[in-house]
C-alpha cells in the first residue's frame, strides 16, 4: 500500500492547500484531478487484490490471514478515499458560499 499511501497523502495535502487558498490557479486543479483519478485506480486495484485473495482462499490456496489483510487494505484505502472525497465536497461548498 506504499504508493497508495503516498498518493492519498498527497491528495490530502493538495486539498488542505486549496482550502486555505495557497494553491495556484488552473495548474493546481488539473494536478489535483489527476491525483484523485490515480487514487481511485489504486483503491480499485486494492479491491481486486482483495477479491483475488478471497478466491484463492475459497480454493484452498491461500490462508485466512492473507485474505483478511488484503481485505483490510482495501477497506482502509476505500475509507480514506471517502474521507478525502467528503473534504473535497466540503471545500467546494465553502468556496461556493464565499461572498465577495
Amino acid at each position, binding site marked *: 500500500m506504499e504508493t497508495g499511501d503516498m498518493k492519498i497523502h498527497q491528495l490530502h495535502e493538495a486539498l488542505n492547500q486549496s482550502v486555505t487558498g495557497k494553491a495556484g490557479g488552473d495548474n493546481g486543479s488539473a494536478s489535483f484531478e489527476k491525483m484523485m483519478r490515480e487514487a481511485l485506480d489504486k483503491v480499485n486495484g486494492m479491491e481486486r487484490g482483495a477479491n483475488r485473495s*478471497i478466491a484463492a482462499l*475459497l480454493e484452498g490456496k491461500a490462508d485466512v490471514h492473507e*485474505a483478511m489483510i488484503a481485505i483490510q487494505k482495501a477497506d482502509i484505502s476505500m475509507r480514506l478515499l471517502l474521507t478525502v472525497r467528503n473534504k473535497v*465536497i466540503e471545500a467546494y461548498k465553502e468556496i461556493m458560499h464565499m461572498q465577495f
Partner: protein
Amino acid sequence: MPDKLSFESTFNALERATTITQHRHSLITDNISESDTPYYRPKELDFKKALAEAMEPAAKAPMAQTDPKHLSPEPGPIQGMDVFEEESEWNGFNWVNIDREMTKLTENDLMYRTATEALLRKITLLKEVIREGGR
C-alpha cells in the same frame, strides 16, 4: 459474470460457499451420528467442484445419474450439489472413519466462518460507502 475479480463475482462466490459449507456440515454430522451403524457408507460433497459449478451460470439439464454411486439430486436450495459416497476403509463394521469425519468437521467449520466473515466485511463496507455517499 465475465469479470472474476469483480465485487459481484466475489460476493456470489462467498454466498455460495456458505451454502455449500452448511450443507456439507449436515452430511458430516450425519456420518458421525451413523458411525456405529453397520454397513454405513459416509457421504461427502466436493466443495471445490460445487463452488466452481455455482460460478458457471450455464444452463443445466436435469441431472443424470452418471455413476451408480451417486445419490439422487436433492430438491430445494441445495439442488445441483453432487452428494456422493466417499471412498474409505472398512473398519470392521462400516466404512466410517471417525477421525477423518472430525477433521472434516473442523475444516468445514473454519471455511464457513471465514466465508461469513469476508461476506460481512464486504457488506459493511458497502453500507458505509452508501451512507457516506449520501452526504
